[in-house]
């Protein structure tokens, strides 16, 4: 019986990661400029470049595993992936389930709306009676629930921010709230330019919006956490962070 299980286990592990590179979970949907998959199947973007730099610095082998965003934390806790490196904000709610590294960027949350007939300002009063779209399981969803729903807004949840943007272009929702960089990239695209404008950042709420973006690891993986933190600190200290950011952003997005 033991032999059977052993051979089955060997067969399964042979079907997969034998040398155990780290499995990095990223949502497969395009999230420019942080992470997108291009036409040749390669991952490109600022977050990918940073990941590569940190891993090189620490001498870790890795492979990117596409994981659906709405199941990415359960996938981490269940062992499907080892690290979440997908613009996930560090919040107390999430810290109950997983551990985070130190932050590697922090940017405000923006509301983008239709150019005509949309929302006037990023305040609860302006959003009363409007439909706002957010990505599921994000700090923005929690923010909308806490601040805008009681004021009379309606919320629609999407699996990916990209879908929310598409519905904004399609006129199905009046506004969307998400990370400012990602929305800037959307506004710079053809579809975004034609339809929508930004109405500014929302009032900050650090408890909900979090203390910046970090990488997620399972609880109890102190060694991995230490390595990643060391890597992030090293990359920032030796200037690689700024070199990577230069082609994407005019100023540093590390945040205060």
């Amino acid at each position, binding site marked *: 019986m033991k032999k059977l299980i052993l051979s089955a286990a060997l067969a399964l592990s042979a079907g997969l990661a034998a040398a155990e590179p780290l499995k990095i979970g990223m949502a497969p949907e395009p999230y420019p400029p942080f992470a997108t998959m291009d036409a040749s199947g390669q991952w490109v973007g600022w977050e990918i470049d940073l990941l590569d730099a940190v891993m090189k610095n620490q001498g870790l082998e890795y492979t990117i595993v596409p994981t659906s965003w709405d199941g990415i934390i359960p996938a981490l806790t269940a062992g499907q992936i080892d690290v979440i490196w997908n613009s996930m904000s560090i919040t107390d709610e999430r810290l109950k389930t997983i551990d985070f590294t130190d932050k590697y960027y922090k940017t405000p949350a923006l509301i983008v709306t239709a150019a005509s007939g949309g929302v006037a300002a990023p305040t609860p009063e302006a959003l009363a009676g409007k439909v706002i779209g957010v990505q599921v399981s994000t700090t923005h969803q929690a923010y909308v629930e806490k601040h805008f729903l009681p004021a009379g807004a309606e919320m629609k949840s*999407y699996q990916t921010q990209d879908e929310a943007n598409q519905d904004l272009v399609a*006129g199905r929702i009046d506004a969307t709230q998400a990370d400012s960089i990602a929305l800037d990239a959307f506004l710079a695209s053809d579809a975004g330019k034609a339809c929508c404008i930004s109405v500014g950042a929302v009032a900050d709420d650090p408890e909900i919006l979090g203390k910046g973006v970090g990488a997620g690891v399972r609880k109890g993986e102190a060694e991995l956490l230490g390595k990643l933190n060391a890597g992030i600190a090293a990359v920032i200290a030796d200037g690689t962070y700024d070199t990577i950011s230069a082609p994407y952003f005019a100023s540093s997005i590390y945040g205060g």
Partner: protein
Amino acid sequence: MQNLPPHRIVLLVIGLGLAAACVWFGNWSWLMNPKYAALIPGAIFTTIWILVVTTGLGLIMAIALGFAQATGPWWLAAPSAAFCTIVRGTPLLLQIWLLYYGLGSLFPQYPWIRESWAWDILREAWPYAVVALTISYAGYEGEVMRGAFRSVPRGQLEAARAMGMPRFTMFRRIWLPQAIQRVLPTLAGETVLQMKATPLVATITMIEIYAVAGRVRQDTFIIYEPLLLIAVVYMAIAGLIVLMFRWFEGRVPVKAA
């Protein structure tokens, strides 16, 4: 419960024990949370109304498609056959996304659509879900109905025509009822399959019970308990469907020739 063999009693007890263990050891705190508990009845209702509406409309469409293929002229039969083949040859998820994202991105480009009364409906997700599921059901049942119409004995139809019955009355009184009677068992199975297809509409923002389980999982990271609960709900609905069709079959007078 009479004549229950002993091994079945043991299995039932073990089954109930497992269910009790799930309830006892599982994390059901999310059910107490009014945010989620309030969503569940509405979500179950959404699942059921989508199922009923798409099955009803799909069956009507299937009758037309099956009839066209069984006895229609080639210019009706060929497109119907092509329609059924295309619908059955592509995944339902793809069809749903094609309608919602493809058509959905097409409509807002025309200002006259945006201004009209239809915009409030076209803005929502449910029309696309209903259309996609109806088309899917019609594609599969069209084949089933084609076989059903063919299987009704020709003699009855000829006798009706010989007696001067108008064509539509013959269809309504003889051909259609007999065709449906013959395929009731198949329709029961297909309706269960349709129920199993309803979770896919959660991917286009409709809130039915699979979406609620997803919501709980995303907010609280509790994975299994919500899924187990909705599995039980789906099994219950499937059981109801089977019972309902059995009742229909019971109402049909069948003379074993």
